[in-house]
């Protein structure tokens, strides 16, 4: 369970997050959608302990990220891209992350296989395409086989096969009892995989609920998105 409770973050007089509240429940895929600059990544950064909010709280299973002694056992996160040094080989990048939690080398090769990067294990990350870098980031998130997955814009750079793979992965995770929080600025794509949607714009949650609840009263997904996230729509 992910709980975001009245999260506010102001920076140099500018409000980045304005009392953001929502929940991502277990056995559900929660889509977190909004235009670029809406506050999606900022919310996730606060949730993952990378940024301290001005007020409010973001917890995973009732705990702050920084309070987890072995966070990767419980939470896997990919914040866009590989998060790796360009000169490092993929297997070495995953190797040090795995070592931080005592996961063996076998697990590294398992996740590389799972994300379709086994053939590129010994390649340097700087030779990766955008899609491969995304997959490496997701591989890092999967290392601990966590029950909570937080993925920021995971479909960026993925081809249709990759997008279908992500859809299958997150669906299976949720069906197995896990919690999945998936952010994107592409509502149409999220709606095909998410059970619940949280729409954010200008640092504020504009709507939340099941996909059908959020879309209700609008002509369709696109209409709902523009109605909720633009000044004209509101």
């Amino acid at each position, binding site marked *: 369970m992910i709980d975001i409770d009245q999260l506010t973050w102001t920076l140099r007089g500018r409000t980045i997050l304005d009392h953001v509240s929502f929940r991502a429940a277990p056995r559900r895929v929660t889509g977190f959608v909004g235009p670029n600059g809406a506050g999606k990544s900022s919310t996730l950064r606060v949730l993952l302990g990378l*940024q301290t909010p001005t007020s409010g709280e973001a917890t995973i299973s009732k705990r702050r990220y920084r309070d987890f002694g072995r966070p990767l056992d419980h939470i896997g996160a990919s914040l866009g891209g590989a998060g790796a040094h*360009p*000169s490092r080989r993929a297997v070495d990048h995953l*190797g040090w992350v795995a070592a931080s939690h005592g996961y063996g080398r076998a697990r590294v090769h398992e996740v590389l296989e799972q994300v379709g990067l086994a053939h590129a294990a010994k390649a340097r990350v*700087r030779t990766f395409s955008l899609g491969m870098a995304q997959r490496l980031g997701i591989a890092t998130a999967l290392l601990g086989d966590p029950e909570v997955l937080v993925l920021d814009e995971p479909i960026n750079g993925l081809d249709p096969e990759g997008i279908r793979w992500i859809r299958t992965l997150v669906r299976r995770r949720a069906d197995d009892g896990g919690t999945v929080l998936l952010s994107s600025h592409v509502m149409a794509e999220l709606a095909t995989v998410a059970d619940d949607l949280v729409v954010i714009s200008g640092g504020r949650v504009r709507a939340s609920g099941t996909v059908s609840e959020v879309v209700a009263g609008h002509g369709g997904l696109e209409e709902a998105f523009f109605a909720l996230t633009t000044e004209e729509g509101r």
Partner: protein
Amino acid sequence: MMGVLRAEILKAVTLAGVRHTLIAGAVIPALLTWFNARAALRGWQTGTDGWTTQDLAQIGVTESLLAAAALAAVGVMLVSSEYRELSVDQGGGYERVTTALAIPRRGPGLAAKMLVALLLMVPVAVTTNLLSTAVALWILEPAGIGWDRERIAGMLAGCWYMIATGLLGASVTTVLRSGLVPMVYLVVNNTLFSPGFLLTRLTAAAWYLPDTSLIGLVVARMDDPHQPTKVVSGLVAAGWLVVVMAVAWVLERRRPV
């Protein structure tokens, strides 16, 4: 904590730049010593170029100090590598975020990184000192240059000088989150000229600056009544290291990643 240490060790040794610089720091001074010692011995034996036994006694010492530039580079690289970004075409992003996700407690994470830096730098400092000294003494034996208390004290001071320079590089880079300025400054300081050392001509206080206090560990006694002893220089250098590391600790725990 063991997992954090393992992770930091793997991060360090899987970076080719760090590996190569450590090896260069251990070996190149000895090679330079070999060339210089042979030329110096020839000069001393033939009475050309004004070589004295005092000059010969410095062979091996001066060359080994170049390893300080290598360790400064390693210290900077260990930290700055965390902020090296992938290209925009690859989605951008940098390793520091992954580190923060895997090791959310930043204090222990920083402590582990500094400890790994120390574990890598000590063997290089000791090796380069021993190797350069062994080469110098082997070649200069006909001139009666051998082990003495002064040379051993010089080696110990040299080791501390190299290690402290490397740790200073790592600490300053942690504070600045960029390796460019500390890399350029420390490498130039250890190879070409030292701005702090030049400042001692203007003010005695310059002897107590971070880089000058380090140099005070290894430079010969000069005609400057304000020049502190090597012990005092060593203590001042240690003090500066503690201050910069403390600043790095406070900032790392509070700043966003």
